[in-house]
């Protein structure tokens, strides 16, 4: 339990610190430093407390459930590998925090800086102590995100933003490959638990998907560790503040890839595919990085390419799949961490003091800043692999391993190439030290400013350099126990005693090493000439290439997307219709069956055929001759008439009534709208487009006609309607079964339906209420009648007749409403009839006259209608029945006789009110805006 809490605290500490710093964003910078430093130090202490069990083989371990169904658990463990990386992350992290405090200027946003840094630290630490590969992935991607924030810290600088994006794209992209690889690994191994997976190496390597999985995981590792050809993000990442670079290059981020290779060594390593791929990528990267580093001028850029090269070396060593090579790699990780962090900090000091990082402008700084010079020179010597420094030992081991590993066919090749890499390393390392500190100052200005910083700033690199020196002088003290334990952990073998030392006698490795130093020094002497040749070669820059490809992709993709997604309704509908037609054809062909069923047809009467001809002619006229819009509306009226007739004849009186009533309201609406729309707009579509649309239309028509035919010629099976027919009267209290369905069996549908209508009314109101303002208002005010008008507004006969028509129609409405439950009619139809009755008044006597006499508000009608319908439904719940349970009974009164009262009638009243309100609202508002056009302009007759 204590272990579990320790692990959890260890894992959470950096995140808590990051959050605390973010929350205390406005506090003095010392607070930020304090929190970050304390968290790192506390983490180190916790890690130290775990040293004994972790290195002693009793791996501290804790597990909490997170997403069991996925296999993602919060498993934390600190094995020797994790412990060593944790040490680097927290130790160098602490030093970076201290250094960063001095490095950052007064006005810089330390809150954001330290919060991001701690987030990064937490993510990195998470990777190394994760005991579940999915959890590892979580932290892995987090490092990409945190590094995005850190690299882009100087948001105003273009290169910072670009570098951040590039790092995110490359490492994030690799991370996605890693996700795929890890999930595959887990699926192959049957578990996402790291310990379990590591125990199933043979099983994994034998799996058919092993090559794919390996490729994906390596992609993740290589991108993170900046292996060629994914290296280019790393030099761009130097846009980050230098302390970050120090951290990124020495202990975090790039080391994550190496860590991953080490972590999964027991499952991945050993196959030929693994060995060949990893070794060659590492080797190429080592030589490439070292070569390029020789010709960079920015101090951080030199160091960045050096990092690429050094990481190539580590990767190559891990690729050998040999225990001894792993040991070399682990030792070099320590060395590299120490000298690289020191070097970056030194570069930071130089920049901080001189204002430049361009090595061509600097020189002879040893005089001005001796302490810095000493620190940097020692660190560079370690990087060059010079004795008696730590770098020398690991480079010796590396060269030794290349010899040991060499294939029998080309014994010389690998050691030779490795030596080339080592030679370049010597050259750029020496250049870093020599050109910076030795000789004379190349430019006066930076030199004039230069002096050693305060100890607070050089303490961190000094400490690291001291460590690098001690690693060389006393490797058995400072490295051997740890490296031995870590190597055992990586290779999943028992810890073996390790011999580390500066002197192993004269062997081939020493010879190669010595020649590398000699040739490297020689190269440095010829640097000017080499540089000229290099610059003449003008090799392509992968980073720039990446940007170009992205920009090109963006342009092309944008063009294509805009072309495809032009906001064209025609295209949207075309897609819908085409998909529909395609699906109908597919369904018919795949499903099979017969087109014409066995049901006997009903012979049609002569008027039916005539009406059918009317409908077809009217449809054709609307479709083909719709330029005269009023005429098109008249044809639509004909279609509506025929449809109404069809309903009336085919035993659907309610439908006929509804269709008739809706029809006229629709016509009124369309006419009102058409008044303000162009009456005869120009033709827009081209002939081919019309032909294409016609083809689609005909295909759709034929298919849906055929479906209708297939449906109509089949006999119906048993239907739930039988229940409705049987229960309408006894259970629902009404003889009009359609109405009983509407207000009882399926009253809930009707509730939704009236709400739709009510909302439509409100929406229409909202649309038209603002029509008098803005551009629309300007247009309305500038509106001129587009056809000659008769000056007579209210014809006498019409007005007079409308006065008698109103009460007559209202009476019909009342009649239709009251009998709806038993005979054709009902609230909806009644509402439309009443609405028409009022609309006739508007038509005849005009808007103002009629509107002033209207006794109701449409909003209120809609609101109360819905409430009444809802109340009817809720009323049923009081006696404990479900919502919308109906109630009815028969009563008898003297004189009046027997009559029925039903809750359905109340529900229908709600329907009536809502429908009336919505219809009146729509038409009334529409005519209202037409009034706005007519009023100020007065009469006009062009």
């Amino acid at each position, binding site marked *: 339990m204590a272990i579990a809490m320790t692990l959890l605290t260890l894992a959470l500490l950096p995140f808590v610190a990051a959050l605390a710093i973010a929350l205390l964003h406005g506090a003095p910078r010392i607070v930020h430093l304090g929190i970050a430093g304390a968290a790192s130090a506390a983490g180190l202490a916790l890690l130290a407390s775990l040293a004994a069990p972790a290195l002693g083989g009793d791996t501290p371990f804790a597990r909490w459930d997170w997403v069991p169904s996925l296999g993602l658990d919060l498993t934390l463990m600190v094995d020797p590998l994790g412990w060593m990386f944790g040490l680097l992350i927290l130790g160098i992290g602490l030093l970076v925090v201290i250094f960063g405090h001095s490095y950052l200027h007064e006005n810089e946003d330390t809150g954001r800086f330290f919060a991001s840094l701690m987030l990064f630290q937490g993510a990195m630490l998470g990777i190394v102590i994760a005991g579940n590969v999915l959890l590892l992935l979580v932290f892995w991607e987090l490092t990409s995100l945190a590094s995005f924030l850190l690299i882009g810290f100087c948001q105003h600088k273009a290169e910072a933003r670009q570098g951040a994006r590039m790092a995110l794209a490359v490492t994030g992209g690799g991370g996605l490959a890693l996700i795929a690889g890890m999930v595959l690994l887990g699926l192959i191994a049957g578990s996402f638990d790291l310990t379990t997976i590591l125990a199933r190496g043979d099983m994994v390597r034998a799996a058919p998907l092993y090559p794919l999985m390996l490729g994906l995981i390596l992609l993740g590792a290589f991108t993170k560790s900046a292996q060629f050809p994914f290296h280019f993000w790393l030099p761009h990442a130097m846009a980050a503040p230098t302390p970050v670079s120090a951290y990124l290059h020495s202990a975090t981020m790039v080391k994550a890839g190496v860590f991953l290779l080490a972590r999964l060594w027991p499952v991945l390593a050993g196959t030929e595919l693994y060995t060949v791929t990893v070794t060659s990528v590492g080797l190429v990267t080592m030589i490439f990085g070292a070569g390029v580093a020789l010709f960079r001028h920015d101090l951080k850029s030199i160091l960045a390419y050096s990092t690429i090269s050094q990481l190539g070396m580590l990767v190559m060593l891990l690729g050998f799949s040999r225990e001894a090579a792993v040991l070399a790699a682990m030792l070099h990780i320590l060395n590299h961490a120490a000298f690289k962090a020191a070097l970056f900090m030194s570069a930071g000091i130089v920049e901080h003091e001189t204002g430049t990082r361009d090595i061509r402008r600097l020189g002879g700084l040893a005089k001005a800043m001796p302490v810095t010079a000493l620190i940097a020179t020692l660190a560079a010597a370690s990087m060059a692999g010079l004795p008696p420094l730590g770098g020398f030992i690991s480079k010796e081991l590396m060269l030794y391993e290349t010899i040991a590993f060499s294939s029998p066919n080309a014994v010389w090749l690998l050691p030779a190439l490795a030596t080339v890499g080592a030679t370049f390393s010597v050259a750029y390392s020496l250049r870093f030290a020599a050109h910076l500190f030795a000789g004379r100052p190349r430019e006066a200005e930076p030199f004039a400013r230069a002096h050693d910083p305060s100890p607070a700033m050089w303490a961190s690199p000094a400490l690291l350099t001291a460590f690098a020196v001690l690693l060389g002088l006393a490797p058995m003290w400072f490295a051997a126990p740890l490296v031995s334990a870590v190597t055992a952990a990586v290779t999943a073998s028992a810890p073996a005693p390790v011999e580390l030392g500066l002197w192993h006698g004269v062997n081939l490795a020493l010879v190669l090493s010595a020649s590398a130093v000699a040739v490297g020094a020689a190269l440095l002497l010829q640097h000017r000439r080499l540089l000229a040749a290099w610059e003449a070669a003008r090799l392509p820059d992968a980073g720039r290439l990446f940007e170009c490809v992205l920009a090109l992709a963006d342009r092309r993709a944008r063009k294509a997307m805009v072309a495809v997604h032009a906001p064209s309704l025609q295209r949207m509908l075309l897609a819908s219709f085409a998909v529909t037609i395609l699906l109908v054809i597919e369904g018919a062909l795949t499903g099979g069956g017969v087109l014409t069923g066995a049901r006997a047809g009903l012979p049609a009467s002569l008027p039916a055929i005539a009406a059918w001809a009317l409908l077809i002619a009217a449809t054709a006229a609307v479709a083909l001759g719709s330029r005269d819009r009023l005429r098109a509306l008249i044809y639509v009226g004909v279609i509506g008439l025929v449809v109404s007739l069809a309903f009336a004849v085919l035993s659907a009186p309610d439908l006929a009534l509804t269709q008739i009533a809706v029809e006229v309201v629709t016509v009124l609406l369309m006419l009102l709208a058409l008044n303000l729309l162009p009456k005869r707009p120009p033709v827009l579509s081209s002939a081919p487009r019309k032909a294409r649309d016609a083809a689609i239309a005909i295909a759709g028509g034929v298919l849906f006609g055929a479906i209708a035919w297939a449906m109509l010629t089949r006999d119906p099976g048993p239907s739930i309607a039988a229940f409705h027919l049987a229960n309408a009267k006894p259970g629902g209290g009404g003889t009009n079964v359609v109405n009983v369905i509407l207000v009882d069996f399926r009253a809930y549908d009707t509730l939704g339906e009236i709400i739709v209508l009510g909302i439509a009314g409100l929406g229409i109101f909202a649309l038209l209420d603002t029509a008098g303002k803005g551009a629309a208002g300007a247009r309305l005010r500038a509106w001129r009648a587009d056809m*000659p008008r*008769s*000056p*007579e*507004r*209210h*014809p*006498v*006969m*019409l*007005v007079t*007749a409308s006065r*008698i*028509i109103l009460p*007559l129609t209202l009476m019909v409405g009342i009649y239709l409403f009251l009998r709806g439950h038993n005979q054709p009619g009902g609230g909806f139809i009644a509402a439309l009839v009443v609405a028409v009755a009022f609309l006739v008044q508007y038509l005849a*006597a*005009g808007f103002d*006259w009629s509107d002033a006499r209207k006794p109701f508000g449409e909003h209120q009608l809609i609101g109360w209608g819905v409430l009444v319908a809802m109340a009817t439904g809720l009323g049923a719940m009081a006696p404990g029945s479900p919502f919308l349970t109906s109630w009815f009974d028969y009563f008898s009164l003297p004189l009046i006789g027997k009559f029925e009262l039903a809750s359905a009638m109340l529900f229908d009243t709600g329907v009536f009110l809502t429908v009336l309100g919505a219809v009146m609202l729509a038409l009334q508002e529409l005519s209202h805006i037409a009034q706005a056009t007519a009023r100020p302009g007065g*009469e006009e007759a062009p």
Partner: protein
Amino acid sequence: MSGAVPFAELLAAALIVLGAGFALVGSWGLVRLPSLMERLHAPTKATTLGLGAMLAGSVVWFQLVKGEWTTHELLVPVFLFVTAPIAANMIAKVHLHALRSGDASAPAGPAGAPPPPPGRADWATHEAPHQGTPCDFEGDERR
């Protein structure tokens, strides 16, 4: 009652035939008469009357043959007789309006263009109604 049935049926059948005949004549007039004003005569009257006859046939049929008490069919012709003249009036106004505004698709027909009314006023379709006349419905307050 048994003697009444054939008569009732005969009456109903006759009304139906008569009604359909008038409807047919109305629509035929619509087709063959020379211009809109002439055509207007046919459907507004013949067709309406035809429908009335058919509805009367329906009343007779249900009343006497099926023994069902129905009268409400009669409301349909009543309604039509109220509305048909108004509809005809409005269509005629449209025609006059088109004539005056020179719409090529509305030729004057054999009766020519209507002469203006005596006095200073024009027809209401061409001139706003004078204040205070029965044609002025701008506001009842003034009436």
